[in-house]
């Protein structure tokens, strides 16, 4: 057994986190920065954080993840990091020539209280930041929230520091896609295009962290939200934030600053959440939904109904981020499954309430913990076994020990490919999720079938 010390008996823990279901803010901020075209993320702290965040994102995407660091030493930690940040900006603009630098803080620079806003102002004033280049910055202390909070903070900063209101509507809709995969961002754009909507999607990591092999390294790949779009976001007709944890703050901030009416929807994972997204988008954009979208919806519905015998009543354990878990749980309930154990490490009161609502039909039998960790999830599973586990890569240890079919979903996925290319949002994404879930469930059925019950057809 790989997790041989995990006991069935659950003791309350107040101080010790074991096998977390979250990580820290800056990695989310770094990921968000990568979603702006020509942007280099910068970590203002000691260099270890940046190395860790780059490594994790690199392993998750198997793509170059470029980011710089202020490389604090003990001296900077005592006297403040202003000199380091100014030096960093000079080095970066001279050597790497980005259009934008997205600075996030770390626990270290937050603890010593560096005033990044003032330092950046100084850098603009003294010409360290060349004409026509931008530096946006966000405070991302990791002792608050999680990687999702960091993503949200950076996107919000990008929005308020870049959007300009000219007073002339651009006729577009802002969409903040949340902390999702590049495949998901591309799928959201595809759905919008089918509706005839030209959204300003930010950030947009499609084409950045799932780039092609061409024989040439591009420091700033083709993808990413253009800076001109970021500016124009202040002139959009409306904003839709997908996922309350990641995207509510950015769209609300745009509303406050540029008076752009906003709404927050769940991430469009699964049938019903995608329905709501499409409905919301058509309403704010004033367009009608074309048949091709309804057709995709029907296909998803069709597969769900075909495969009911394999899904109905099956118990599922989940760990991940609130924005994903809420619609994912809803989808599992929609297709007839029974999500029984659910944890997220990302705090936020609304989570448990939403999950309880979605799983109301099962009464009080559902375990939800927020913030919780994977150690607790494993203990729950030991007490009430499940038929399927859905979480990030770290779940493979539980899946192996308990012999549970396992679908990787969430962040990070360090040992498989696919998430960068095949979306789980939208109706097509729903199909992809179903294919993955049914794949592991039916492989398991075949594996465990006796010779006489091992069958070809059904």
């Amino acid at each position, binding site marked *: 057994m790989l997790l041989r*010390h995990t006991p069935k008996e659950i003791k309350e823990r107040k101080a010790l986190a074991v096998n977390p279901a979250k990580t820290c803010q800056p990695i989310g901020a770094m990921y968000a920065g990568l979603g702006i075209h020509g942007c280099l993320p910068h970590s203002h702290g000691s260099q270890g954080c940046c190395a860790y965040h780059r490594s994790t994102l690199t392993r998750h995407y198997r793509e170059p993840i470029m980011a710089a660091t202020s490389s*604090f*030493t003990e001296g900077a930690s005592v006297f403040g990091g202003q000199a380091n940040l100014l030096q960093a900006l000079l*080095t970066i603009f001279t050597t790497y020539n980005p259009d934008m630098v997205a600075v996030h803080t770390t626990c270290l620079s937050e*603890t*010593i209280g560096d005033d990044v806003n003032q330092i950046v102002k100084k850098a603009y004033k003294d010409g360290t930041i060349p004409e026509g280049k931008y530096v946006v910055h966000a405070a991302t*202390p990791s*002792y608050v929230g999680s990687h999702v909070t960091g993503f949200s903070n950076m996107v919000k900063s990008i929005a308020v520091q870049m959007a300009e209101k000219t007073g002339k509507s651009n006729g577009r809709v802002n969409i903040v896609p949340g902390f999702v995969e590049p495949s998901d961002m591309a799928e959201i754009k595809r759905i919008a295009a089918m509706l005839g909507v030209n959204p300003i999607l930010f950030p947009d990591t499609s084409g950045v962290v799932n780039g092609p092999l061409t*024989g040439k390294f591009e420091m700033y790949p083709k993808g990413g939200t253009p800076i001109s779009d970021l500016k124009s976001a202040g002139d959009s007709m409306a904003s839709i934030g997908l996922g309350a944890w990641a995207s509510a703050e950015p769209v609300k901030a745009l509303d406050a600053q540029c008076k752009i009416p906003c709404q927050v929807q769940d991430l469009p994972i699964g049938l019903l959440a995608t329905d709501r997204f499409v409905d919301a988008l058509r309403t704010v954009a004033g367009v009608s939904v074309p048949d091709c979208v309804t057709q995709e919806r029907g296909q998803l519905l069709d597969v769900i109904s075909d495969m009911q015998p394999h899904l109905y009543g099956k118990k599922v354990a989940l760990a991940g981020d609130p924005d994903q878990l809420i619609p994912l749980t809803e989808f599992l309930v929609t297709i007839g499954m029974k999500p029984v154990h659910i944890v997220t490490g990302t705090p936020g009161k609304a989570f448990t309430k939403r999950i309880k609502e979605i799983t109301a039909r099962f009464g009080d039998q559902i375990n939800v913990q927020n913030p919780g960790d994977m150690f607790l999830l494993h203990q729950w599973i030991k007490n009430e076994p499940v038929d399927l586990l859905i979480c990030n890569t770290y779940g493979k240890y539980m899946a192996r020990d308990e012999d549970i079919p396992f679908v990787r979903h969430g962040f990070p996925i360090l040992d498989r490919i696919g998430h960068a290319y095949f979306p789980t949002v939208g109706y097509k994404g729903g199909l992809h999720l179903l294919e993955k879930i049914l794949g592991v469930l039916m492989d398991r059925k075949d594996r465990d079938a006796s010779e006489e019950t091992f069958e070809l057809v059904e």
Partner: protein
Amino acid sequence: MTGERTITVNPEDVKKEILAKYPPKVARKRGKQITPVSSDEKESLQVGANVRTVPGIITQRGCCYAGCKGVIMGPTRDIINLTHGPIGCGFYSWLTRRNQTRPPSDDAENYMTYCFSTDMQDEDIVFGGEKKLKAAIQEAYDIFKPKAISIFSTCPVGLIGDDVHAVAREMKAKLGINIFGFSCEGYKGVSQSAGHHIANNTIFTHVVGLNDTISDAKYKINLLGEYNIGGDAFIIDDLLEKCGISVVSTFSGNSTIDQFANCHTADLNAVMCHRSINYVADMLEIKYGIPWIKISFLGPKSTAQSLRKIAAYFEDQELIDTVEKVIAEEMVPVEAKIKEIKPRCEGKTAMMFVGGSRAHHYQELFWDLGMKVLSAGYEFAHRDDYEGRQVIPDIKIDADSRNIEELEIEPDETRYNPRKTEGQMKALEEKGFQFKAYEGMIPDMAKGSLIVDDISHHETETLIEMYKPDIFCAGIKEKYAVQKHGIPMKQLHSYDSGGPYAVFKGAINFYEEIDRMLNANIWHYLEAPWQKAPELSGKYAAE
């Protein structure tokens, strides 16, 4: 070994090209860490190392915490490694280093699959985190009943003034198990290297010497600086066992705390990675009288030399004969493999930028295949790892290294026991045997090559453009940037999904890996037909 290779690109030009892109002050600073090997006269060469990274330069370095918790302590399976800090540091160092471990039974302790953290919140930062740390230790004890708990400090801990050592002492007294703390805040030093030193000090202070049981094995050594990435330590152990040499303790691949506690009973310290572990080697010598030698089990020649060196140390004909027999046996398949693969790799070129030792030791495996090393450098080494240990007295201690404690070690009152008398050591030295000697990377670098310390992304790009290597070795952060160029990239920290690569058996794996990487089909398909011959487009449509 570095004989007739000729390299056509002038390393001085490469250096110039690299520095041209930096602001003047940065160029001056980086210039000291980039050393062209322009002639065969290498005595006077210096490489600036273990100095601060330039902010913003896109370094590949990590932090002190990573060196301490991740590198040195990560592979020890039966200690609860508790990260005191916000969640990230602990999360990223959770199972991300590929060090394998083999508990002796199904219920033996193994916490390496777990991540333990105090997950500090803002109130802990404001009011101090000691209370939470104490509670976390208590909870860990209540749930797991471990024999030891160690605490790793992350950046905020030092700044808010949490005294992890006081907490460790208090909880140790309360719970009656070994509990100790590492002051390895990420901002200390200039790289992972500081963390290695702190880990060495702490383990030496709190663990080494706690178990005096002497095993009755005849030739007892410690293997220092071997972390069992991809199972290296396993096959090293197998080889040593075949020779009749037993390993008391490995620092720290596949290790347990008891092995550390008992390591002072070995009769020789064999040092693999000099950078990360020389401190423990020195301290074991001063306190317990165990001499140390530098060895390397990477590459068949080095492996053979190292085995011979160990045998020579014990001065026992039986051991010397066994070692020769084992070498002869193991070399047969190695030579066969070289013969098979070399024709496909000969003349190709490589570069490597990792660690504090591998960028040196791995070169031999490429030479075996007839390949050249165009450029190399370390990520977190010191000058002695380039220039040799003789340079140590000349190294200036700067503000960043002054903060890393040097322990004052004295011979142990009862247990100091020089394994060799001064006379015996002298006699061995007269025969050419070297104690505490490491010549560093420079002597092995060919004329025309370039040494780059703490390489940046821009420098990597320039090297690739100018030297056009056939294979590039570094870490995960560089991997895919290099491969976008169509150049295969080998991770020499974590070995990608491969390994073991140590000793004779591992060398065979490595040759096969290089063969696969250089000769894989995929690199021929970068262009689509219409990119190769764009002028044809539209023709058929027009007809």
